[in-house]
């Protein structure tokens, strides 16, 4: 019979527990797709078409990080209205991904149901709101990006096309009307998780101050670093039992994502309870819905004039780093190009891969702090813990 992957996480992984020793390992079982090899030998415009296919849940984030890396290599700076539209897209991606994860994958654990679809019977009003939230993000991403999954308008230098002025105004209106729903969903998440805290373990948090990447990466230590120097500030270790690599900083795990962003922005306190990540995601649904409205308004205020969609450029030999805040944390791309704009080497570091050491350290702490509970209950808590991270295994193995 087929082994039991953890349900309700994106991708295929299982948790392997040695109950007598009180230790756990997270085994990532996804097949290797080798995107860092696939993009080599391809023109730059193919590269940002290909990398979103790493993950259908956060394709816009991959697309943006790749475009930012190419622009950094070629020395391209898009117009302010193009940047505002990109920021609206990244914000919509964060809200969309958080909404899906919270209400279909993580919160069923807390709401006492197995599947988000059960809400149709048990709480149809809530399901309507969840779908309205997701629908708003779909409309924004389709309106600016051309499609909900795997954007088409985004290119190096800006956009192929801006949304029509009047439809951009409709998008602002839609985002504004969805803000109260976002606030309600935040409250649902906060209430559902409540003070659930089966263990505590402090860790190091990392996040870009500016989610578009024009800032340093801050840490919960005194240190901060330039995102271009990420390879000197943490490593990715290969594990024989996993097809994903595991991030370590100073030989220890660290955390990226919603909770880290909120903590480093001074909006949440450090408590060492990873389950608060789900509350932080709820808060970000509210925060980034407002951000969509703000960035769209900024773009519209420029008039979205024809001819401003993209700046021209000439590909050149060089290397560029693109870093942005994806829904699950900081996503880094380093891309090398020859003088024709053909990619010669690539390094893609996803948020989930960065978090994996921390997941295992948390799992071990959870086991140590819950001795005496029966194995089935511990297994359930461990699966809930993994889901609380919102791991995207598809991303982590790319």
């Amino acid at each position, binding site marked *: 019979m087929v082994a039991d992957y953890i349900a309700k996480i994106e991708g295929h992984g299982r948790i392997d527990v040695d109950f007598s020793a009180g230790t756990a390992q997270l085994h990532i079982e996804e097949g*290797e797709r080798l995107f860092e090899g696939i993009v080599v030998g391809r023109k730059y415009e193919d590269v940002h078409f290909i990398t979103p296919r790493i993950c259908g849940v956060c394709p816009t984030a991959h697309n943006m990080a790749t475009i930012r890396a190419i622009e950094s290599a070629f020395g391209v700076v898009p117009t302010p209205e193009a940047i505002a539209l990109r920021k609206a897209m990244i914000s919509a991606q964060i809200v969309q991904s958080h909404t899906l994860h919270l209400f279909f994958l993580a919160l069923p654990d807390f709401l006492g149901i197995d599947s988000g679809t059960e809400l149709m019977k048990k709480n149809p009003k809530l399901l309507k709101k969840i779908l309205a939230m997701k629908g708003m993000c779909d409309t924004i991403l389709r309106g600016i990006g051309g499609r909900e999954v795997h954007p088409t308008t985004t290119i190096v230098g800006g956009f192929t096309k801006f949304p029509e002025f009047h439809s951009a105004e409709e998008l602002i209106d839609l985002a504004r009307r969805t803000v109260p729903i976002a606030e309600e969903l935040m409250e649902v998440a906060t209430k559902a998780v409540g003070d659930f805290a089966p263990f505590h373990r402090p860790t190091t948090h990392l996040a870009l101050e500016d989610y578009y990447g024009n800032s340093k990466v801050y840490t919960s230590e005194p240190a901060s670093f330039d995102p271009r120097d990420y390879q000197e500030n943490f490593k990715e270790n290969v594990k024989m039992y996993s097809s994903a690599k595991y991030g370590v900083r100073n030989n220890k795990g660290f955390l990226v994502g919603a909770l880290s962003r909120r903590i480093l922005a001074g909006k949440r306190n450090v408590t060492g309870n990873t389950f608060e990540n789900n509350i932080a995601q709820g808060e970000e649904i509210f925060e980034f819905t407002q951000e969509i409205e703000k960035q769209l308004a900024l773009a519209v205020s420029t008039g979205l004039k024809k001819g401003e969609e993209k700046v021209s450029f000439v590909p050149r030999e060089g290397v560029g780093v693109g870093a942005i805040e994806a829904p699950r944390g900081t996503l880094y791309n380093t891309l090398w190009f020859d003088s024709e704009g053909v990619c010669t080497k690539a390094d893609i570091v996803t948020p989930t891969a960065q978090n994996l050491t921390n997941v295992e350290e948390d799992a071990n702490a959870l086991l140590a702090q819950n001795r005496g509970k029966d194995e089935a209950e511990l297994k359930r808590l461990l699966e809930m813990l993994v889901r609380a991270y919102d791991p995207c295994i598809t991303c982590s193995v790319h």
Partner: protein
Amino acid sequence: MRSKSKGGKGRAKKALGKVRPKSLDGGPADLRPTVAIYDLTDCEGCELAFVPIVEKVVRGAKIVEWRLGQERKIPLKDGEKIAVSFVEGSPMTLEDRELMKDLRERSAVIVSFGSCACVGGVPSLADRELREKFMALVYSPEYKPKSDIPAEPLDRTIKVDYYLHGCPVLPETVEWFLEQVLIGKKPDKFGGYPVCLACKEKENNCLLLEGKPCLGPVSAGNCGAPCPTFGKICYGCTGKVKGANIPQMRQELIKILGSEKAADEHMRIFLKDWKQ
């Protein structure tokens, strides 16, 4: 004439009533056909097409297995088969292939769902030879891969009944397909008209005439041409249109892109069997 059409409607309603009971309660009255959704190695973006239409899907069908959406598998009666199983992604591990053989036996209809399941998609750009090279590049020399074959179409492992191409598949496509198959029709394969027709309908300028590489003329147009509509080149993710003239398309791309290699690189993402 009028009464005839009324009668027709009544019959249709009756027929629908059999598969779409009004009540959502399970139990003996639940006659909804069963659906399973599986994802193998891929990006899971096609599965998201179920989310905007989830209320309609659950009203018309019972989702019995969906690892991404639910932990519980709803057991079927002895000998009963899953009416429709959607499979997204490529079976790259031995475990995946065993899972698929088991699913084939338990399903009446299997759908290759999205480009990865239909043709191998983007991950299949790394063939066997390249994979060895890339594996050493990405992992360490001691690392033993989880996957033992490159990304391949699902129909190399099991027999497939329908193919829904797309990178990603759109919610409209899933809705249309499910409706057809659940009321007992055989959904016609897509590919009756090219992307060009969808483009003309949207009054887009022709990208080929602008000197940009576009696979619209050889690709199925059921996507509604979202890429050319926004000025983006087409990579042909919807699969080949009926009567596609691939060699001529290739000649056009060579003219535009300047080399055979560049044309082939553009075509080989989704058009897997063009060298015929």
